[in-house]
């Protein structure tokens, strides 16, 4: 098997770390996009079989160590799951959704997932986002917005961390933006 590398291979995340702000890369996850309308005939049974509960608008269900299902749009859900379980899940999902108007697409490798933490995390986000994360990004909520000029999916599943997912082609740009905007907190 080829050597596993991410878009941020060789970037020094320790150089970004300070007392009040830290960034780490979450490397071992797969990203699967599920396109389905929740009211599609047969969808409920198939999704139950897969152990998936579709979240409402801007919502999240499940957990990162099993399957984290995030709402992206009324008919689009992003499933983040451990990379080792990804291929099996896609196979199961395609079998369960066979004959139903839905699509399962493997986007692993298309994205970089960053975990931001520290007391200054919302100040760093505020410098880059038009969305007021400190006020409106509550726990269990996901938003698609802009991070600086890059399209990003930002979500919170616990009290201490903010997850930032960007396309791998924007990962370096976002890393540099984070480096600049967190400089005063180092």
């Amino acid at each position, binding site marked *: 098997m080829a050597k596993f590398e991410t878009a941020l291979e060789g970037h020094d995340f320790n150089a970004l770390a300070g007392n009040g702000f830290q960034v780490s890369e979450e490397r071992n996850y797969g990203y699967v996009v599920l396109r389905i309308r929740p009211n599609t005939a047969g969808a409920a049974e198939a999704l139950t079989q897969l152990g998936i509960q579709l979240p409402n*608008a*801007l919502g999240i269900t499940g957990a990162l160590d099993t399957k984290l299902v995030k709402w*992206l*749009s*009324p008919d*689009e859900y992003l499933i983040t799951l451990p990379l080792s379980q990804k291929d099996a899940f896609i196979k199961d999902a395609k079998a369960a959704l066979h004959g139903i108007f839905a699509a399962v697409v493997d986007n692993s490798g298309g994205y970089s997932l960053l975990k931001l933490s520290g007391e200054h995390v919302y100040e760093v986000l505020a410098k880059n986002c*038009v*969305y007021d994360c400190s006020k*409106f990004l509550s726990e269990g909520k996901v*938003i*698609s*917005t*802009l991070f600086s000029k890059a*399209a990003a999916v930002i979500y919170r599943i616990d009290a201490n961390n903010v997850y930032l997912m960007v396309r791998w082609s924007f990962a370096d740009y976002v890393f540099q933006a984070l480096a600049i905007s967190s400089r005063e907190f180092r």
Partner: protein
Amino acid sequence: MFLIHCPYCGELRDEQEYRYAGEAFIQRPSLDCTDEQWGDYVFNRTNPKGKTVEQWAHAAGCRKLFVVERNNVTNEIYAVRTFESYKEQA
């Protein structure tokens, strides 16, 4: 700052997340139309001053297209609606 409410996300979001997508409800003529009708469909817009009915896409958000009834002089937004809501009304 210009904020638009997305009917799918259900939140006010900054204009930078959106992309303007032109006048709404332009009817595509049938394929046997005249060149004048086709030219009108492709190029001519009502271009009013005041109330406009236009399409916006939540490009950096849910990526859905919806309808904004807006005053293009004052930027006052009268209504933000999904295309489905017009169908239900008709």
